[in-house]
């Protein structure tokens, strides 16, 4: 029994816990929709409690026990992360910390220790919040998503995966199986910055991920992605195009950050106004680029 007004109860529905991916995909086809995929439950259960998720499904399909979806591997030129991998494991992974440290940084700022011990990367992406913290770093890495159903599998670039707030291209019978990251070259620099209403356990008001190289004092391969400033997490190609090929210095960096803040399309919501988000897009982008220029100590 729950004593809080407005705290909805968990709906009484059937529960399934497939142990293998193949069994799960067969089950999803049999159910023909009307199911909810769950793994960590760290987004789903609070949404049910708040009344943000209506209990219009009749089955839970729990993916947590599918061990074959829980991994972080290096395969040739790709880092592959299984969708059911816990956020805490991604944050701690030596592969992630070494090759794509801004992803580890972003994951470490999701929720709390408890949330990261249960929550999964597949869940963070499938939930498709415009503020999803794993998205900006993955967008700068030009990551791809592997979707699987009983009939087929397809690989979708992450920037085509999100359709809008809470909406993805995932269709009935499909699950997000794997995140594929082309391994970047060693001389690239990264940053992830997140602004929230408080220091810890906060949704992003604005988040920025940057990835770039500096060769002979010139910016190369600049990639910038922002969260919480558009219906989906986005890259800012105009700012990227402006900075790439320019000499490192001012006013280039400030101008590049300005262009990024012109590209974003934030809304005003309970957390911040659109104007504030635009301003902070400029501030965080500028700081992130500057941060990429200062040498950082190696991650332990």
């Amino acid at each position, binding site marked *: 029994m*729950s*004593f*809080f007004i407005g*705290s909805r*109860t*968990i*709906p*009484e*529905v*059937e*529960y399934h*816990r497939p142990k293998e991916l193949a069994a799960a995909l067969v089950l999803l086809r049999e159910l023909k929709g009307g199911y909810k995929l*769950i793994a*960590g*439950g*760290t987004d789903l*259960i*609070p949404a049910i*409690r*708040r009344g943000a998720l209506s209990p219009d499904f009749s089955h*839970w399909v*729990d993916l*947590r026990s599918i061990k074959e979806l829980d991994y972080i591997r290096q395969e040739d030129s790709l880092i592959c992360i299984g969708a059911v991998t816990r956020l*805490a494991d991604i944050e701690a992974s030596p592969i992630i910390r070494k090759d794509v440290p801004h992803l580890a940084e972003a994951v470490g700022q999701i*929720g*709390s*220790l*408890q*949330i990261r*011990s*249960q929550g999964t990367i597949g869940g963070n992406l499938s939930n498709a919040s415009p503020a999803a913290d794993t998205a900006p770093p993955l967008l700068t890495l030009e990551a791809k998503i592997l979707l699987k159903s009983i009939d087929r599998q397809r690989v979708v670039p992450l920037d085509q995966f999100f359709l809008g707030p809470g909406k993805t291209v995932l269709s009935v019978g499909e699950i997000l199986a794997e995140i594929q990251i082309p391994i970047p070259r060693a001389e690239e620099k990264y940053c992830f910055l997140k602004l929230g209403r408080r220091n*810890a*356990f906060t949704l992003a008001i604005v988040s920025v991920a940057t990835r770039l190289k500096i060769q002979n004092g010139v910016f190369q391969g600049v990639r910038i992605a922002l969260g919480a400033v558009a219906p989906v997490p986005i890259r800012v190609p105009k700012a990227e195009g402006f900075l790439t090929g320019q000499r490192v210095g001012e006013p280039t960096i400030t101008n590049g950050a300005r262009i990024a803040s012109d590209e974003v399309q934030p809304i005003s919501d309970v957390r911040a106004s659109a104007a504030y988000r635009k301003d902070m897009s400029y501030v965080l982008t500028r700081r992130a680029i500057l941060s990429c220029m200062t040498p950082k100590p190696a991650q*332990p």
Partner: protein
Amino acid sequence: MEVEPQETFLDVLKNRLKIKSVHRGCEEGECGACTVLLNGRPVCSCLILSPQVDGGEVLTLEGLNQNGEFHPLLTAFMENYAIQCGYCTPGMVMTAYYLLHHLTDFSDESIRKGLEGNLCRCTGYINILKAIKAAKKEKDSGCWW
């Protein structure tokens, strides 16, 4: 034990197993009052559907009070006045227990980051940090179990 999927792990711990230490706070995974260690990891039991725990190992505060003897971490909390109303305490202690076994950096900043999922309205966290640092000293000098 047979459980219904709509019972959360918290419901099972409190209602079925009558475990007193686990507290119902926000039921949204924000306050940490329901924190227990599941397979060695700190989790909010309010967010877990009970069938998901099948085959797992759980540690609650009761496990840190063996044969009437308090675990050194509990003693550190008591001696450093890290407990006022006590509502956050079980969750706080379980997270602290995890941190003492997993953190490499015991600065204030690092401990605070580890405690970000456990809210306390009474203490202002100051004495909780003191207690954890005191417990770390005990652990390092071998007074631990």
